[in-house]
C-alpha cells in the first residue's frame, strides 16, 4: 500500500533549518539523504522531493482559473518535502516515519487502485 509522507513544520522550523551553520546543515541533509537512500534501496521509498517554500496556487473563481501567491489554505505550517512510500501496512509506515531524522511527518494513505 502507498503512503505519502509529508515532512511538515512551522515557518520558524523552516527558518531555523535554513539558517543552520553550514556544517550542521550539511550533516542534517546527509542524514535525510541517508534515510531516502536506505529506504529506496529497501524498496520502501519509491519517490520524493525536498520542496522550496515558494508556493503558488491555481484555483477556480467564478469559472475562471486564478493564480495566487501562497498555499491554498492560510496556514502557519510548511511542507519541507515529501516521500512516496510503499509499506505493507500503517504500522510499517509508522516505523519508517519514526526513523526520519527531521521533524514531524504526516502519513497520508493513498487511495488503493481497484
Amino acid at each position, binding site marked *: 500500500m502507498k503512503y505519502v509522507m509529508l515532512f511538515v513544520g512551522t515557518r520558524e522550523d523552516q527558518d531555523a533549518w535554513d539558517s543552520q551553520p553550514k556544517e550542521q546543515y550539511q550533516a542534517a541533509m546527509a542524514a535525510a539523504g541517508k534515510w531516502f537512500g536506505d529506504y529506496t534501496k529497501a524498496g520502501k521509498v519509491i519517490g520524493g522531493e525536498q520542496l522550496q517554500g515558494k508556493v503558488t496556487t491555481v484555483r477556480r473563481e467564478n469559472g475562471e482559473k486564478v493564480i495566487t501567491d501562497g498555499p491554498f489554505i492560510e496556514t502557519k505550517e510548511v511542507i519541507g518535502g515529501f516521500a512516496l512510500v510503499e509499506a505493507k*501496512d500503517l*504500522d510499517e509506515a*509508522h516505523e519508517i516515519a519514526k526513523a526520519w531524522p527531521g521533524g514531524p511527518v504526516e502519513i497520508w*494513505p493513498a487511495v488503493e487502485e481497484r
Partner: protein
Amino acid sequence: MRILGNFDVAEEVVQDSLVTALERWPQQGIPDNPGAWLMTTARRRAIDILRRDRRYAEKLVLLERSTVEGDRAEADDRLRLIFTCCHPALPQDGQVALTLRAVAGFTTPEIAAAFLVSEVTMAQRIVRAKRKIVAANIPYRVPEGAELPARLEAVLAVLYLMFNEGYLSRGSQAAMRRDLAEDALWLVTLLDRLLPNQPEVLGLMALMQLHLARSAARFDAAGEMILLPQQNRALWDREAIAAGVRTLDSAALLRRPGPYQVQAAIAAVHAEARSWEATDWEQIVLLYNTLLRISDSPVVRLNRAIAVSHVAGPEAALGEVNDLAMILGEYHLLHSTRAELLDELGEHELARKARLRALELCQNPAERALLERKLAQLP
C-alpha cells in the same frame, strides 16, 4: 481479520458465531472446547444471557472455568483485535467505542447510552474509526518488542477511560446503562490472560478490583453518591479487596513500577484503612510523590493536595490547589476540592462560590447531585 482481511467481516463473524452459539447450545449442549468461547465476545454475552436462565447454571460454571489454553489461535485473534481497536492512529473516542463494539460486544445504542451521546453520533464515530482501519491499512497484529510498551499503554488508557465512565455513572442511572466498569475489569482480566506478566496490566486490574470492592458503599438507597469519607466500610467487599491486593502483589513481583500500580497501591491503602481518620495519609502522600515522579500531571497534583491536607492541614493543601487553578480552571474537581478545603477553613462563602463553579463545569449526573446536595445543606 488476519484471515479475512476485513474488519467489518471479522466483526460480523464474531457476532454471528455468538448468535449461532446461543441458538445451538441449549439444544446441543456446550461444545467440547468452550475455552475458545472464553476469548470471544460470545463469552461475555453468553454469560449475560445464560445468567437469565437457571437451567444453564451448570453450563455457566463450565464456561467460567474454561481456560485460554484450549485455543491459542482464538486467543491471539482476540488480542490482535484489542490492539487494532486501540491503535493510536484512531482518535481515542473512536478507540473506546470500537473496543466496546468489537471486543466487549456492546451494541451501538448501548455505547451511545454509556457515553451520553446520540446513537447517530456514536454510529458515525464507529464507522469513521472502521473506515480509517480499512483505508489506512491499520494492521491486525500484536505489536512486538520496542513497540509494545507504548501500544499497551494506549490499550490500558482506553480500558481505564471505560472504567471511569462506568464507575462514576453508577447509581441512579445504572439500571439503564450496561455496566462499563464491570466490562472494563473483564477486558483487563482478559488482556492479562492473553498477555501475561505485564505489570501495568496487573496494576490496572488491581486498581479496578479495589475500586469495585467499594461499590456497595458508594451510593445510598436513593442512588445518591457517597464519597469515601462518609462510606460505610462494613459494606466493602473484603474478599474483593484481598483479591485486588493479591493482583497488586503479583504486579510488584515483576519489579517494573508504573502509574497504574501506584494508583492501585493508593487505593489499597484506602481499602485497608479501618476509617477515613485512620487512613495512613503519610503513606498516601509518599505514593503520590512516586506517582508524580513517574507521570507528573496537574490532576495527580490535585489528588496529592487532598492527601496533603490530612498530613499538613487544609491551608497548606489549599495553597497547592490554588497553584493549579490556572491549568485546571475548567476541571470541576479542582473547584469542588477547593470548596471542601475552604469549608474546613471556615470560609463558607468562598466554598459556596467554588461549589457553584464546580456545578457549572460538571457533566456527570451523580456528581452533580452530590454538589447540589452540599449546596443545599451548607450555610
